[in-house]
């Protein structure tokens, strides 16, 4: 990614109050692909007994990452909103570990972007969750 593009991508994250509240950091974004990381935080815990992060926080990470992938597709004029998003939770994320999502906008039309994503903790061979979603394609 060029420096200019990196800067735009970083500004994109900073402009989203909810992504900022969850401490999301953009790792990369471009050509219909995006990668975003979210550090472990005790405030995001969903199961007090095990200390596992709430599914809702993982959903927010997936949604942001999928939206970023859709926006970064060369055929996208820039804006997007989620139409639908399905998340499959394969296993609990290991408490204390950072979660990283990678999204791929694998098809786009004039109106709809089709995106899939994977979320991983430090054990990258076994995804924590996968997502598939459709997003609107809108002008800036």
């Amino acid at each position: 990614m060029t420096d200019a593009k990196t800067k735009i991508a970083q500004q994109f994250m900073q402009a989203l109050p909810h992504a900022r509240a969850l401490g999301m950091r953009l790792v990369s974004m471009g050509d219909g692909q995006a990668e975003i990381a979210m550090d472990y935080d005790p405030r995001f815990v969903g199961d007090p007994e095990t200390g596992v992060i709430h599914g809702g926080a993982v959903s927010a990470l997936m949604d942001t990452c999928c939206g970023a992938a859709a926006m970064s597709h060369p055929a996208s004029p820039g804006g997007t909103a989620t139409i639908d998003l399905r998340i499959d939770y394969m296993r609990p994320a290991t408490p204390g570990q950072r979660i990283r999502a990678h999204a791929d906008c694998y098809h786009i039309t004039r109106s709809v972007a089709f995106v899939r994503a994977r979320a991983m903790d430090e054990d990258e061979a076994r995804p924590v969750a996968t997502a598939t979603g459709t997003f609107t394609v809108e002008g800036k």
Partner: protein
Amino acid sequence: MMARTRPEPVQVVKQRRDAALKALVEGVPYIGFLGVQFDRRGDELTALMPFEEKLIGNPLLPALHGGATAAFLEITAIIGLSWGMLWEEIESGAFDPEAIVGGKLPRLPKTIDFTVDYLRSGLPRDAYARAQVNRSGRRYASVHVEAWQDNRSRPFAQATGHFLMPRRDG
């Protein structure tokens, strides 16, 4: 003929139920982080997510973040499902609500999958949601949730999720 036991005073019953619900909700840090609250009328729960700046996803519109909406729906589903189980156990006497208040929280259902439909953009206002448990078996449950803002008949998001039920002892 046996004398019927006098029903407990309504305030005692209410207080016990409200305390159990409060302990269940306050046990989950992420619910507190998003500021989600629950309003109880009998066994029916309505979730409330008061508007806050940090819930915004698109600052230009502005609109609620899809992730905040998804989390709100998932929280409503999990608490709705847990409350349904807990309600039956409290009423039948199988579960002592005092134990929950004392910190012994029931184990929560685990999300298997969750699908959110975004019907219209979430406005920068308070949001409400209700869950309907369509099936609750011994191992799996299917729950539908609807969220709305000013107008109950115009939901801004809905979701369906499947959950793995916690193992019950005995």
